[in-house]
């Protein structure tokens, strides 16, 4: 049998099989099929071919999802390709700032505790300190009652440093003494300043150094951020 010479109708046959024709076009094609044996045979063939499927292969979708990269918005550093094809690094401030603040404070506490230990002004036993209160969610900022702004956190030390004013941080002692009802606990408030004053490049460098820091006790902070003692009321 020779093929129908109406190429326009023949082009639409697969669309009729898939149901993707407009109502008007579908009606036109069906009308043609009533009168054209060649196209009727062809559409039957197309239906058979469409129904042919390779043997099913089991796909582990969970494994695929686990292998997917994370979206760029989820990383603290985001690489954005500018119009001039220059790669511009921007810190994702909405989420990065509070994480940087937390990381810096943990590093600062570790350094401070190590300093106490090395200079003998610490609690005598292992110099440990715990960071009091977690940081809040990025959109609400740090919501802990012991925090004042995005740049500072209140740290509770577990080694009773507040009882020994000594040669330790004057600020820490001052903070300890000023804590009403908490003279036996050691509270030290440290501020890293206003992080929004730092450039993206500075923040990126800080993050990079923090990531490389092995967490070993060191008298020197891995980040060059001004760490200033504050009073309980928050003034420096």
């Amino acid at each position, binding site marked *: 049998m020779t093929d129908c010479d109406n190429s326009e109708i023949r082009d639409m046959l697969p669309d009729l099989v898939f149901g993707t*024709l407009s109502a008007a076009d579908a009606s036109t094609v069906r009308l043609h099929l009533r009168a054209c044996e060649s196209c009727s045979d062809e559409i039957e063939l197309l239906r*058979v071919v469409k129904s*042919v499927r*390779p043997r099913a*292969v089991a*796909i582990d979708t969970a494994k695929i*999802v686990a292998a997917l990269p994370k979206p760029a918005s989820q990383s603290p550093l985001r690489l954005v390709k500018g119009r001039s094809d220059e790669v511009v690094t921007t810190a994702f401030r909405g989420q990065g700032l509070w994480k940087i603040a937390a990381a810096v404070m943990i590093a600062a506490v570790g350094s401070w505790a190590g300093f106490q230990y090395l200079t003998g002004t610490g609690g005598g036993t292992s110099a440990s300190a715990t960071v009091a209160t977690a940081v809040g969610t990025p959109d609400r900022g740090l919501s802990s009652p012991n925090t004042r702004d995005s740049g500072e956190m209140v740290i509770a030390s577990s080694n009773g440093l507040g009882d020994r004013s000594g040669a330790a941080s004057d600020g820490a002692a001052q903070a300890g003494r000023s804590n009403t009802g908490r003279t036996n606990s050691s509270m030290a408030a440290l501020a890293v300043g206003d992080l929004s004053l730092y450039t993206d490049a500075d923040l990126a460098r800080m993050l990079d150094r923090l990531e490389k820091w092995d967490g070993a006790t060191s008298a020197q902070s891995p980040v060059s951020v001004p760490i200033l003692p504050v009073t309980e009321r928050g003034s420096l």
Partner: protein
Amino acid sequence: MIEPEKEKQEPLDRELIERWRNGDQRAAAEIVGRHSSALARFAMRLGQKDEVEEIVQDTFVRAFSALDGFRAESSLRTWLFTIERRLVIDKRRRLARQGNMVEVEDQHAVTSHDALDGLMADEVSDQVARAIAGLSRMQREVFTLRVQEGRSYRQIAEILDTSEGAARVHYHNAIRAVKEYLDD
């Protein structure tokens, strides 16, 4: 021509992509679940017998790594097919360079019962598969995309990096060859 996938799924695919960009991993799972079977079938129809799951996984990983470059005017599935096809071709070329198989460009594909063995579910399917396997690579891909995946000529042109006119010609040559094979 109405593209129901574009009408019904395109907005949903776009929504899922946006949700994934905002950190919703369930959106990624939904995208994978929605398109993985079609990608597996397409890979097999392209002649990929082994490592189909690996091809599908690589396709998704590439796609998600480049979602910023996904143009909204084409459907997500079309774009995924484009990526997968390139991966299959790259793999074939790699194997050809390693001497594992002869890379046949646009000549008639080698038909072999062994090549089809285990791929098809029944005899009719087997016959149709043989008919399609006898087509040239471009004819086979156009025919598969048009008749088995319901892609438009515009989408086929995008996937196969050719023109709509060329896609039409390949399709009509393919359907003629399939009819002749089955009539014999």
